[in-house]
């Protein structure tokens, strides 16, 4: 079920009523939430609920097994962990990377002159598998690393894994962030409820009006072109995608936070004005924060982080970003996207270490110039993220660097105007909000202005009539 659908509207209304019934016990309400979360997931494709259950049950028992053997040797505990990783990564490997692995094996065989044809791989990708797998893995890893104890209640644990606001596209929550919230009754008060609804309106506006209605057609046109695209088209198509992917994913995360808040729960932020980032370490502190911190805590630091030699630090950085890229999808273009970000981070680290500059540069114009440079370089990476193959990426990159002489224009004027207006708006808002939160802004604004803006956003969502397009990150 997608947030931007009428089915979700009805589902959420019924759930809110159930959650606020005065005569139900807290345990009964949690059971309601768990069942509702399973319904939310199964409404997309019912059979795949079995995978979610398998992943949930395996990590429940393995975490308890690891904890029970906490005084045993590291090898014993590690063998328990290996089972968890094998099952979870096995599911992803089969459903998400099966075809990719077979195709690459075929190419490898051909390189050695061996003819082998990969079998047909007509497997549907279970929505959100990469997200809930990371959630269950973080639970087991936390117990393995001694950061936390196993959760005492299976109900709380299952609800932590399955809680529908974060289930299919994050934020990737940690047990410490959410599980304690299930221990005592939670019900939103009036202000939490209305603020939650406000966040839902904001998220829907980002997704339905800006991403789908404003920007998707331009990026689809440019990245769907079969012939070379010119300078203006290539740049506008890429800028459109930069705005689309942000508004799509940040919109989803904002709705997720809002729905949880309406039920009385707090989910963490996933984005903080990423296009106002100055440098790439700053970018990754602002973009998909729950993934970047997951990769930091469960991959980069266990690899050694920056505790070894300088070369080892760069190696760890690259491994983390390459795998982070691959996490997004079974395509070498995603690896290239991650690799570019790894190179950017490494280059920034190298420059900072040699220049001795630790924080942001002095002077507003210097900061703005560096932010624009960061955004420019981020856009280069988006080409690999959006293109379906390297041929498509090279066509767009050639256009962006003025190497597609004689290319026919592909973008209608109306799409060009929409991209220019919307992307400029996004950049200005993010720059002005760089060190602020929406909560601060609303606290300082007159109530009538907040109300008028929210009304315009909701009206725009209604008359834009989104056709229930799935969120981009569902495919990951």
């Amino acid at each position: 079920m997608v947030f931007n659908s009428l089915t979700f509207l009805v589902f959420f209304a019924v759930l809110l009523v159930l959650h606020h019934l005065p005569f139900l016990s807290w345990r009964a309400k949690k059971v309601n939430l768990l069942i509702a979360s399973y319904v939310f997931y199964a409404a997309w494709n019912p059979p795949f609920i079995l995978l979610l259950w398998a992943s949930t049950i395996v990590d429940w028992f393995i975490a308890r097994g690891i904890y029970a053997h906490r005084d045993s040797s590291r090898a014993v505990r590690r063998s328990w962990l290996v089972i968890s990783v094998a099952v979870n990564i096995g599911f992803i490997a089969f459903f998400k990377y099966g075809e990719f692995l077979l195709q690459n094996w075929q190419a490898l065989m051909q390189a050695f002159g061996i003819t082998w044809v990969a079998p047909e791989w007509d497997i549907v990708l279970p929505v959100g598998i990469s997200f809930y797998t990371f959630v269950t893995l973080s639970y087991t890893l936390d117990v393995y690393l001694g950061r936390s104890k196993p959760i005492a209640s299976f109900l709380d644990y299952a609800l932590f894994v399955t809680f529908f606001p974060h289930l299919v596209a994050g934020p990737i929550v940690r047990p410490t962030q959410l599980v304690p919230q299930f221990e005592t009754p939670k019900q939103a008060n009036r202000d939490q409820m209305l603020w939650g609804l406000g966040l839902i309106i904001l998220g829907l506006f980002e997704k339905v009006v800006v991403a789908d209605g404003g920007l998707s057609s331009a990026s689809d046109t440019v990245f769907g072109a079969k012939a070379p695209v010119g300078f203006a088209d290539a740049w506008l198509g890429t800028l459109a995608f930069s705005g689309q992917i942000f508004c799509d994913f940040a919109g989803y995360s904002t709705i997720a936070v809002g729905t949880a808040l309406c039920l009385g729960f707090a989910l963490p932020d996933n984005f903080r004005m990423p296009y106002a980032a100055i440098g790439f370490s700053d970018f990754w502190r602002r973009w998909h924060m729950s993934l970047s911190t997951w990769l930091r805590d469960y991959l980069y630091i266990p690899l050694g982080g920056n505790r070894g030699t300088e070369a080892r630090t760069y190696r760890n950085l690259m491994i983390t970003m390459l795998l982070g890229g691959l996490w997004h999808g079974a395509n070498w273009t995603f690896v290239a996207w991650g690799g570019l970000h790894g190179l950017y981070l490494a280059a920034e680290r190298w420059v900072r270490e040699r220049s001795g500059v630790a924080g942001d540069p002095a002077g507003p114009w210097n900061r703005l110039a560096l932010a624009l440079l960061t955004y420019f370089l981020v856009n280069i990476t988006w080409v690999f993220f959006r293109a379906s193959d390297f041929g498509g990426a090279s066509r767009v990159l050639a256009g962006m660097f003025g190497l597609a002489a004689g290319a026919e224009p592909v973008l209608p004027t109306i799409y060009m105007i929409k991209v220019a207006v919307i992307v400029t708006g996004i950049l200005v808002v993010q720059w002005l909000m760089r060190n602020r939160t929406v909560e601060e802004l609303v606290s300082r604004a007159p109530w009538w202005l907040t109300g008028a803006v929210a009304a315009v956003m909701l009206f725009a969502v209604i008359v834009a009539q989104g056709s229930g397009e799935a969120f981009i990150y569902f495919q990951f």
Partner: protein
Amino acid sequence: MAPLHEQDVVTVREIPDTRFAAIGWLVLALVVLGVAAWEWKMRSLGLLAGDLEDGKSAWAVERRKLESGEHDGVVLIGGSRILFDTDLDAWAEMTGKRPVQLAMPGMNGQPVLKDIAENSAFAGLVVMDVAPTQLFRPPGGGNPAFAGVLDYWRDEGPARRASHRLEILLSEAFAFLDQNYSTTALIDQLDLPNRGRIGGPYMFPWKLSEAGADRQHRLWREIETNERLREHAISVWMRMQGRPGPPEPVVAAICADIAASVAKIRARGGDVVFLRPPSAGAYRARENAMTPRATTWDRMLREAGAFGIHFEDYPAMRGLELPELSHLTREDATRFTRAYVGVLRERYVGLRPGAMLHPGA
């Protein structure tokens, strides 16, 4: 020890310090007023409550009828002509059988015919329309609203199905719920000069039909009365017809594919009839120039060994009114339906009222 990161502590969200109740009432009042004004404006443009959204979900409902057996043995496939120019009530009245409407605007019937032949046990009568320049063209293209529909109808999950039912309920009450008049569509349809040979969304087809239950489409009344809309539709058709005709290998491949599908359906006791609905004026002249009857329509019927009804061959199907040269007025759609169903009824005993035979007999 203090936690290192915010991921190590329970999340707490800041709630802004503002007058939430006042904001809530203001939002409610402004949105109700705005939606009421928008609804009034859309009705003044000719949109009607009860005009249902067509698309993959609506099509999937009809396609699944073939699998569940909830049909009378007749299915209509093809593009917008058989979709707009067929009166399902007239069909039912004349034959006692209500067809399943599987035609799609901007598409042709060949892939659907193949799907029915290969992926269903349907053994009734298939009536496929032929808009020659739509059918005889290289693969690809078509209406993006129906892209991937042949997989979608099988894979559609419960959430999508439920959303479709809710959309129908809301469409019964609100006229403004029409994708052709969403703000995105209205903005995209602004007439701005474009670079090079780009047509842009201004030159995509705009709203042409109204739809009711069972995907009963009719030409939108506004097309009959609003000159601007009519002229726009004609300019879109003429632009689309400005392309060269299909190369011979494309025609050969399409004819062979259709013949194979017809043979499969016949082998299990069904039949396929082809229908060429009317077109008019300069549009028809271009169609004839790009896809001459002898090398497309006649060839296809010959290779498939199939029966076809070409509007040019029946006096009752000529002289009908086509406001934008491609689709009939609603009154003439009923006349045309009665005319071609009359021909079918002569040929197929199973289509005569009260007949116990299946429609393909």
